[in-house]
C-alpha cells in the first residue's frame, strides 16, 4: 500500500472515527465531572460526523447530502451544549459541586 495515496482511501478516516468513538466512550465512563462527560459526548458527535463525511466522500452518489447532514449534526451539538451547560450551572448552584459521585439525592 502506497503511503502517498493514504488520503484517498476511506480506511484511515473510518479507523479514526472508530478511535474518536472509543475515546469518547472511555471518557464517558471514566470522567467524574459533568463537564468532562459533556466533552466526551462532543467527541462521540465528532466521530459520527467524520463517519458521515467519509461515506459521503467515497460511497455516496450525491456529495451534498452528507455535508448538509453534518451541518445539522453541528447545529444539534451546539444546542445540546447550551442546554447541558445551563443544567450544569443549575446543578452547581443547588449542590455546590458537579462531581457525579456527590449528586446522589435520588440514590436509594
Amino acid at each position, binding site marked *: 500500500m502506497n503511503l502517498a495515496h493514504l488520503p484517498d482511501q476511506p480506511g484511515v478516516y473510518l*479507523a479514526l*472515527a472508530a478511535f474518536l468513538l472509543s475515546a469518547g466512550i472511555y471518557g464517558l465512563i471514566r470522567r467524574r465531572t459533568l463537564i468532562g462527560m459533556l466533552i466526551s459526548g462532543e467527541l462521540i458527535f465528532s466521530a459520527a460526523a467524520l463517519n458521515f463525511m*467519509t461515506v459521503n466522500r467515497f460511497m455516496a452518489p450525491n456529495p451534498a447530502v452528507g455535508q448538509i447532514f453534518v451541518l445539522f449534526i453541528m447545529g444539534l451539538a451546539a444546542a445540546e*451544549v447550551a442546554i447541558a451547560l445551563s443544567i450544569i450551572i443549575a446543578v452547581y448552584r443547588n449542590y455546590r459541586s458537579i462531581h457525579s459521585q456527590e449528586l446522589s439525592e435520588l440514590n436509594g
Partner: protein
Amino acid sequence: MSTFPVSAWLIAAIFGFIVTTTVAGALIAVLSRRIIRSVAGLALCCLGLAGLYYFLNSPFLALMEILIYIGAVCVTIIFGVMLSEPDEVAPAEQRGRERWWGGIALLVSLAIFWGVSRLSLQGRWPAPAPAADGSVQAIGIALLTTYSLPFELISLVLLVAILGALVIARGGRTPS
C-alpha cells in the same frame, strides 16, 4: 500526480500531521485531569477534524467546524468551567475503585475500537460512485429546496435551546 512525486509526499505528510493532531487532541481531551486542558484538547481535535474535512473535499464544512466547534462550543464550555469548579479530584480512599473503573473503561473502549475498525476496514464497500457536484452552491440550493423544512426546524431547535438554557440557568438565582 506522478509528474510531481514530491508534492504527493508533501500532501501525505500534511495528512499525517492532521491525523496526529486529531488523535492527540482526543487523547488530551479524555485523559487530562484538569478540565481546562481537556477543553483545549477538544479544540485541538476539532482543528484536526477541520483539516480532515478539507481532505474530504469539503472546505465549507472545515470552516463551519472551526466556527461552530472552536468558536462556539469550546468557548461555551470554558464559560461553564469558569462558573463551576470542575477539576477532577483524586481522593485517597477511592483509589482502588478508581483503578477498577479505569480498567473497565479501557477494556470497553478498546473492544469498541477493535470491533468497529475491524468491521469498517474489512467490509466490502461499494465502488466509488461517479461524483456529482458537491460544491457550496449545490449545498445552498439543496438547503433551500430539498431540505428547507429541516433547515427551518434547526433554527427553531436553536431558538428553543437558547430560551430553555436561559430559563434553566436563571432559576434559583438569589438577588443579592
